[in-house]
């Protein structure tokens, strides 16, 4: 970690300016070698300096250079940021010069990694910064910002402070059994307290699911027989928002066909075996695979044809759809009705009549999605939940432990055994923001209870 790294910090492409960030022990010296202006090794920390980047005698660009000395920088190392006049060619030229003079190109996320390793930010914050860099919607950006600011930590700390009160009280009961003026925590007293903790954890988890949705989008698949209009639907949805239609690889093995932004939430349309190409998904991949796709989707758009009767394979799929997030779309309402809607054994609220050719029902579909995922509610409040997999899995483990505690309480386990479980959860939660610390508990014990010789 002793070498000096550099990278273009702004997105590649044509912008008004571009920023190149350099970090490491040699950062200032290296930039000084290619900078014509003040001697950067002598300027004040956190100053902005006007001058030119030069290659020998050749002037490359007119620039502003920020010099920030360790440790009050993002990475906690000496850091220099060069503001150039955008444009791919000059920016790349500056980068080349830096590399020639002793920098190495930074790996993705390496600045943040250094910040973390240098103790500048905690794990949760590091993860949040990475999220921020990847943020595509305003909601994602807000959530990442909140984590950096420690809002999530605060949520976890609240939970832990509830627990430490219980733990310290039980500990005082154990360590000072002869003090009759300290509240004695019994299993009966604990039952409602544990129920409350469980609710809080569940709530954070629930909101974290939303958080995941904000961060990763909603995995959406369109299921239907050939020619039911799947590709037309996809095109219609993508139509209004062409700008973000991209062929990018999704997080897992799914191919994301396109992304649709609904009130700040991304719908990732996953290409189930190439909807657009074959347009005959059920025939092409069979009922079993369709089921599997349904299983893996956050949202299923199930398309039927108004002009067709319901086939056996469709019935079989519909039988399995209950309990999932689905919307039944009956397309081709401009044609004669042949479908028997009474045969549909599904929630009637989830049925939408479409006519894509006439452009009818698309708005209704979007509103239904907003309703289904409660997107409006997400939109209006601060997204403060946990969004990374590590934190969520810790929280899930804690929930499981809480359920075990309820079992133990039922079985009349001694209170000190139950305290072991509560303390374990308290420590696990501390791992989320790195604040497990024994002394905390002792302080709580002695500041809240009156004991002594």
């Amino acid at each position, binding site marked *: 970690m002793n070498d000096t790294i550099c990278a273009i910090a702004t997105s590649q492409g044509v912008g008004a300016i571009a920023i190149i960030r350099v970090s490491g022990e040699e950062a200032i010296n290296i930039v000084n070698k290619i900078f014509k202006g003040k001697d950067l090794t002598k300027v004040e920390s956190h100053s902005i300096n006007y001058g030119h980047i030069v290659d020998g005698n050749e002037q490359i660009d007119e620039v502003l250079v920020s010099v920030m000395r360790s440790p009050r920088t993002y990475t906690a190392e000496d850091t220099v940021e060069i503001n150039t006049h955008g444009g791919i060619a000059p920016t790349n030229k500056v980068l080349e010069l830096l590399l020639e003079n002793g920098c190495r190109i930074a790996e993705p996320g390496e600045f943040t990694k250094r910040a973390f*390793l240098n103790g500048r930010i905690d794990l949760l914050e590091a993860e949040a910064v990475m999220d921020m860099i990847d943020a595509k919607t305003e909601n994602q950006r807000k959530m990442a910002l909140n984590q950096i600011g420690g809002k999530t930590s605060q949520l976890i700390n609240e939970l832990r402070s509830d627990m430490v009160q219980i733990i310290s009280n039980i*500990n005082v009961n*154990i*360590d000072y*059994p002869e003090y009759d*003026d300290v509240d004695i925590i019994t299993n009966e007293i604990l039952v409602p307290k544990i129920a409350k903790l469980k609710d809080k954890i569940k709530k954070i988890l629930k909101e974290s699911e939303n958080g995941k949705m904000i961060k990763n989008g909603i995995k959406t698949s369109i299921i239907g027989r050939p020619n039911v209009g799947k590709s037309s639907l996809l095109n219609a949805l993508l139509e209004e928002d062409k700008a973000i239609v991209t062929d990018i690889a999704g997080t897992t093995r799914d191919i994301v066909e396109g992304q649709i932004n609904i009130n700040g939430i991304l719908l990732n349309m996953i290409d189930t075996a190439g909807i657009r190409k074959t347009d005959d998904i059920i025939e092409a991949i069979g009922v079993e695979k369709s089921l599997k796709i349904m299983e893996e989707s956050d949202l299923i758009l199930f398309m039927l044809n108004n002009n067709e009767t319901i086939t056996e394979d469709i019935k079989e799929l519909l039988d399995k759809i209950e309990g999932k997030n689905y919307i039944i779309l009956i397309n081709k309402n401009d044609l004669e009705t042949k479908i028997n809607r009474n045969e549909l054994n599904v929630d009637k609220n989830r049925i939408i009549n479409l006519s894509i050719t006439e452009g009818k029902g698309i708005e209704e579909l979007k509103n239904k999605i907003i309703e289904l995922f409660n997107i409006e509610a997400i939109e209006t409040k601060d997204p403060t939940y946990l969004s990374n997999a590590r934190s969520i899995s810790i929280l899930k483990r804690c929930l499981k432990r809480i359920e075990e505690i309820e079992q133990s309480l039922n079985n009349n386990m*001694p209170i000190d055994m139950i305290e072991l479980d509560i303390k374990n959860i308290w420590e696990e939660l501390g791992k989320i923001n*790195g604040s497990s610390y024994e002394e905390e508990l*002792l302080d709580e014990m002695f500041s809240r209870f009156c004991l002594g010789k």
Partner: protein
Amino acid sequence: MYEIIVVGGGHAGCEAAHAAAKKGHKTLLITSNIKNIADMPCNPHIGGSAKGIVVREIDALGGIMGKVADKTHLQIKMLNSAKGPAVQSLRAQGDKIAYPKEMMNVLNSLENLEIREGMVEDLIVEDNKVKGIILEDGERIESKIVVLTTGTYLKADILVGNTRTRQGPHGEKPSNHLSDKLKEYGFTIKRLKTGTPQRIDRKTIDFSKTRVEPGDDKYLTFSFDLEPQYKIEDQIPCHLTYTTEETHRIIRENLNKSSMYGALDDIEGIGPRYCPSIEDKVVRFSDKERHQLFIEPESRYYDDMYLQGFSTSMPPEVQELMVHSLPGFEHAKILKYGYAIEYDAIYPTQLKASLETKVLENLFTAGQINGTSGYEEAACQGLMAGINASLKLEGKEPLVLKRNEAYIGVLIDDLITKGIRDPYRLLTSRAEFRLLLRSDNADLRLRRHGYEVGLINEEQIERLNKKEKDIQECLEWAREQKLKVTEEVKKEFQKNHFSVPTATFSFEQLLGRPEITVEFLEQFQTFPYNQEIKEQVEIYLKYKGYIEKSYKEAEKMLKLEKKQIPEDIDYDKVNNIASEARQKLKEVRPTTIAQAIRISGVNPSDISILSVYLKKEYGKDE
């Protein structure tokens, strides 16, 4: 020339001298006053939550505190007997005359131990190695190893009201220069403070206004080797009373006369968080209407009653008013006033896990000088210092108990890793593996160590072997033994409101149910094992899930304990560690990654950087 000199005759000194002499080393115990050997200058009880388990551990390892207490106590009880087995702990009311007398008998019986009086004011030091002690009159006594167990006697000051007097407990002369000398040799010295309440004449207390607190009506011993040495009906009770509104008014009105609240303005010592004075309690917990006070007998042989919970540094005339405001104490006669005491201790991160100091070779320290408080905490350190001083002489590796092995291990690791803020007291909550560190299994955990270092004899270890074998057999027996649900069995279950088994279950399965005890099952089938074995089997089967979980956690820690940090590591060469962490690591110099993790101020990111560095520099496996 002596092999080992133990300086101080308190609870640490007695155990250290006993262990060293019993292991065959020529030992000198030197104390300023032979009459004060094994003295209990503060509360008269031995044991208590967590501390009682330490006394059991001392006994398992071959120390003497438990046996001496068993032979002399006034009453004994099992604390937390209604709670789980992990938090049960013995507490005895000691006899302040009989206990030291019995301790002297034990010490006098040791062939290799010599005891003499003398005030130690300096050490003989050559090349950072200790070679003996120097007395106040200049006499030099040489030895290979010195163990300092000076208690509160380093620059002790007694504080009462607005007076500060340079003296130890009982008005004894303190050591005036030793702590300055230690500072010169490179030790960091910390000033600490503690306090003690009044002693009241038993005959002047009206006990009808107090509540009786008797000993248990079941025979109990600290020692694994002794039969009970007392009669249940002969136990002497303690009593309980409470402060009154009047008491609080007196304290509030006279607050500025208390040494701690402004009467003295030169107090540096930091008092124990867990042991506040009555002034502290009234000020900090002003919403409480009353505070509990225990009236504890000090001895069968004299009338002093110890007033636990009333520790104070008020001047005598205010103490009179305070005491007389207590129910039952209207006409009480104070035999000795409460006081606070300030003393010097060495900052314990300067110790190795063996309790040898890092600053001077061949110097060991134990007890209050290391910043702890409590007789039991002192005694166990004394024992470990005595054992490790001996092992060093014998050219052997020190005995270091791990956190999953003993409260003693927790205590020493806490001291040398985390240092101290206030006098350190053991608490159940400090032990992350408390389910493994139970009172009932101290022998199973530690006797073998005691045997290996030579403090436990053949007969004792054979008894342990048999116990272990019986436990295994009894577990198998319980697995095989089945309970058929006959009408009679069904009736018994119903009578106790237990759900009746739906099929034939083994005793092992039945004991896994929280409500079913060995005692209950013995109505149908006697266990062919003694009480001790049945207890172990019941605990194991009943809390198996929890116990196994603890074992797993302990294993995780042990893995990290195996990742050694070389003694010669230069933390300045480890790049990118946060500066607070670097400073702490330099101070503590942890020997393993596990220990490094426990240091406050060292974060996970510092640990990962350190691990990477070790791998790179020393080729140590992750």
